[in-house]
């Protein structure tokens, strides 16, 4: 291989971008401080000032700070957890699949799940209007979570009786080619299934988010049992104690616990 053809390992442009990224984070902290002190000095308008301060803090300053800090301290390889767009640890990866994407989607549909719409301006507006009018929105998008540095490829969900705050949902990521699970087993897809219990404030970024049920094993077993009843060609094999039982928090600050078993769902016999 000649040197000229090897892909560049680093670029000055990206280094410049990183400088602006960190500088903007520091400047935003200063702006939040100025906004806070200014809110104290403008009387009753200060209440509106504090609202602006919270929006600034929760949606711009803290995400940027977490993005910078998690780049430093969160390992960038598979540790059984998805990451939020701010780089914080997110939902636990608790399902594996063998087969291709179409077969998984077909099995999920047969098991009574609905595919989530992608997050766009139109679907975001529809979430707000359906929540305000108390209409159900079965294909409501799910927030992006990252695994292998990529957003989920698709997500499926089940709504709970017209309550927009509660839903079952599971995100799917295709594993990179030639990638093996820790321990050496090969799977084609990984998935993270959790149950949204209510809407609340995130502990780490103070944003409005869904809180998830702490016992993620219940949701994992619910997904596997619906798949088994919905599609006879599905086979399930469990890797016991894949991640030894642990207690942890997800990116929204909810505690989660699991027995550490990883079901491997084989959908290779499913006809699409």
């Amino acid at each position: 291989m000649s040197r000229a053809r090897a892909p560049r390992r680093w670029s000055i442009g990206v280094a410049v971008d990183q400088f602006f990224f960190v500088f903007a984070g520091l400047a935003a902290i200063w702006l939040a401080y100025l906004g806070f002190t200014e809110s104290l000095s403008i009387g009753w308008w200060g209440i509106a000032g504090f609202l602006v301060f919270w929006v600034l803090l929760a949606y711009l300053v803290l995400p940027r700070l977490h993005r910078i800090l998690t780049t430093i301290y969160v390992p960038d390889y598979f540790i059984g957890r998805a990451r939020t767009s701010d780089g914080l640890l997110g939902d636990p990866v608790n399902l594996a699949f063998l087969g291709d994407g179409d077969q998984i989607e077909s099995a999920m549909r047969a098991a009574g799940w609905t595919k989530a719409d992608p997050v766009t301006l139109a679907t975001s507006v529809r979430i707000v209007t359906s929540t305000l009018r108390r209409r159900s929105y079965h294909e409501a998008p799910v927030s992006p979570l990252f695994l292998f540095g990529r957003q989920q490829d698709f997500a499926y969900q089940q709504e709970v009786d017209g309550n927009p705050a509660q839903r079952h949902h599971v995100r799917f990521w295709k594993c990179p080619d030639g990638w093996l699970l820790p321990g050496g087993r090969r799977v084609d897809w990984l998935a993270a299934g959790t149950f949204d219990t209510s809407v609340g404030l995130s502990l780490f970024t103070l944003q409005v988010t869904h809180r998830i049920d702490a016992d993620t094993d219940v949701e994992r077993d619910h997904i596997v049992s619906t798949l088994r009843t919905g599609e006879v060609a599905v086979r399930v094999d469990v890797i016991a104690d894949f991640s030894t039982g642990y207690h942890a928090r997800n990116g929204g600050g909810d505690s989660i616990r699991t027995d550490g078993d990883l079901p491997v769902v084989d959908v290779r016999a499913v006809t699409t």
Partner: protein
Amino acid sequence: MTPTAPDNHEKRPSYEPVTRLLQPIARDPHMRRPAATVAGAGLVLLSAIVGIASMADLATHWGSIADDLVLDLDAAELTPDIINASLAAVLAVVGVTVVIEMVCALLIFRGSNLARVAVMTVAVLSISTTFAGWWARDQEITLLTTLPVLALNILVLLALSSRSAAAYARRNEKR
């Protein structure tokens, strides 16, 4: 079913090299325009509109502003000619800035990396100057003085420096 390990698998080093952070972004010419790019272009356009508003403000109150300047500088008496000429000069400078900002907003919206880096560089210089004055010389920053402009600059910088805006501006770069 036996797992087969690929033999051309490159082993990871036991540490993560710093250059990992400086890896070029993957090329993606079909990337959708992210919200951060739209927000950044919109905020640059907003600062252009603020510029137009300040031009109108300068034009209507120029007489008193010029008087204050003369008192500060201990300069000679003002004739109407000097007032008009100085107003035209100031308006021309602000006007050129407004036009440049509008062009940059359009270029950023269309995904130009040069315009994005140029606007961010100006924002960094402006923020640094304001910070130095606030830190070292205790210049007050309030809602009625420099805070709106400073906030606009910082928001522009936050939007345009975000990962998605950077990836969009560099979507056509070859690795």
